[in-house]
């Protein structure tokens, strides 16, 4: 484990949280850092909605295949088990026979993943979602890695709730709904950009984030404005370099 990267990661996340931040953007940053820190191939944060359905809040990649892997875990998979039990769930080899989640394992291996881990996002007694990691290599997760993953999940929970001590139980529901709705706005905005510019969803997301950064706005606000129609000046993809 790169200890410099570890400390940088938590410093970055803490720095973000003391300022005014967009929750989806924050969770996206967290999934990126999770991938870097733990050498994962992909990571995602899923949140439970009022029906108990697990919905993607952020993922390290916007590729449709990865998003689908999270979405189908509403039927079976580590995230569902993790959400129900409140305990970390791991699978060290998704390619062997006798898989506990056959359909999920098949989809995951087709996407190039061999191992998976889900750690709970917990606030006191309530499980609000999970942090889900995939690796391309088979093998067990080191204990240290699992602890880091849990710490990252806890950071995600705190970031989601915008306050360290949730005094009101209503705050959890309010913030969860806001985050879920923000994600929907972002997906709607991605679709609009993809169609307008003839680009894929991943590029559309990059464009949204870049525009938010460049104009010092919240990602969610940019998405909302785009969908509700007031963005004739939205810049084309080539204008700004990646940051």
């Amino acid at each position, binding site marked *: 484990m790169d200890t410099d990267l570890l400390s940088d990661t938590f410093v970055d996340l803490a720095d973000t949280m003391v300022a005014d931040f967009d929750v989806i953007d924050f969770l996206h940053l967290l999934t990126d850092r999770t991938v870097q820190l733990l050498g994962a191939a992909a990571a995602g944060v899923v949140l439970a909605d*009022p*029906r108990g359905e697990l919905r993607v809040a952020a993922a390290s990649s916007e590729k449709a295949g990865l998003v689908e892997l999270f*979405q189908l875990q509403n039927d079976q998979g580590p995230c569902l088990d993790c959400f129900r039990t409140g305990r970390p769930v791991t699978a060290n080899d998704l390619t062997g026979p006798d898989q506990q989640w056959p359909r999920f394992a098949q989809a995951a291996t087709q996407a190039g993943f061999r191992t998976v881990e889900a750690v709970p996002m917990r606030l006191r007694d309530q499980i609000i979602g999970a942090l889900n990691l995939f690796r391309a290599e088979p093998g067990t997760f080191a204990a240290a890695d699992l602890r880091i993953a849990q710490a990252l999940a806890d950071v995600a929970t705190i970031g989601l709730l915008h306050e360290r001590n949730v005094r*009101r139980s209503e705050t959890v*529901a309010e913030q969860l709904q806001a985050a879920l709705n923000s994600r929907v*706005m972002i*997906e*709607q905005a991605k679709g609009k950009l993809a169609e307008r510019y003839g680009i894929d969803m991943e590029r559309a997301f990059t464009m949204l984030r870049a525009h938010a950064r460049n104009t010092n706005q919240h990602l969610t606000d940019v998405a909302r404005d785009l*969908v509700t129609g007031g963005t004739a000046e939205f810049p084309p993809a080539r204008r700004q370099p990646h940051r």
Partner: protein
Amino acid sequence: MTDSRAAAVWGQVAAHAAAHGRRVSVADVCAVAVSTAQLGGGWLVAARGGDPDFVMSVTDLVGEQLAELHLTTGEGPCHDVLASAAPVLASDLGDAESIRRWPGFTPAARQLGAGAVFAFPLTVGAIRAGVLGLYRGSPGPLPDRQLGDLLILADAATVMLLGSAHGDGETEDGAWLDGQPRDLALHRAEIDQATGMLTVQLGVPAAEAFARLRAYAYSQDRRLADVAGDIVARRLRLSREQDPGGGP
């Protein structure tokens, strides 16, 4: 599985409509919301292109008065939900927080007999269909279970408002089948992405894009998620000429 709880809630809504001998509408959602969470009453305000301003349904006089109070004071929990697209759960109108947030609304609301007001945005991402407001005479938080049911009901009301041809919150024939909404799909990214794509393909606002997407899936007897998947994968395009009901 995850749907059984939602199915139970929708079943109550359908049963309420059947008991009143009418098609399912937002009035039934309001009534079930009030009874399921043991509240005093509720109201539903629809947004017709702008901010919610059309009081479409009320369950009692106090509910109606609270709806109007929002409009006359220009503040209140139902106003705040739009900014955050999150529920505003004012479980105690007597606390300092409520007075601070809504200095005009709160004392008047308490005089009307409301001890707590719970407001739910009726939104699908950037699409605003309206607001659902509920009150209870006594203060106190909503238990988690009831809150979950109310959020499910808010979703149902949202889809009803967006799906009905005349924006009247009544469902189309066949939109509800055997006591369940025909396709209140599990939320999927493709559905939201396809909505965004359709705003460009059809040249219409997002609310109409969403309605057209649902209408198309219904007319083809296909699952909404599947149609959305085809649109996102660019196997399917909807064209402006296909609009069955006339332009925006």
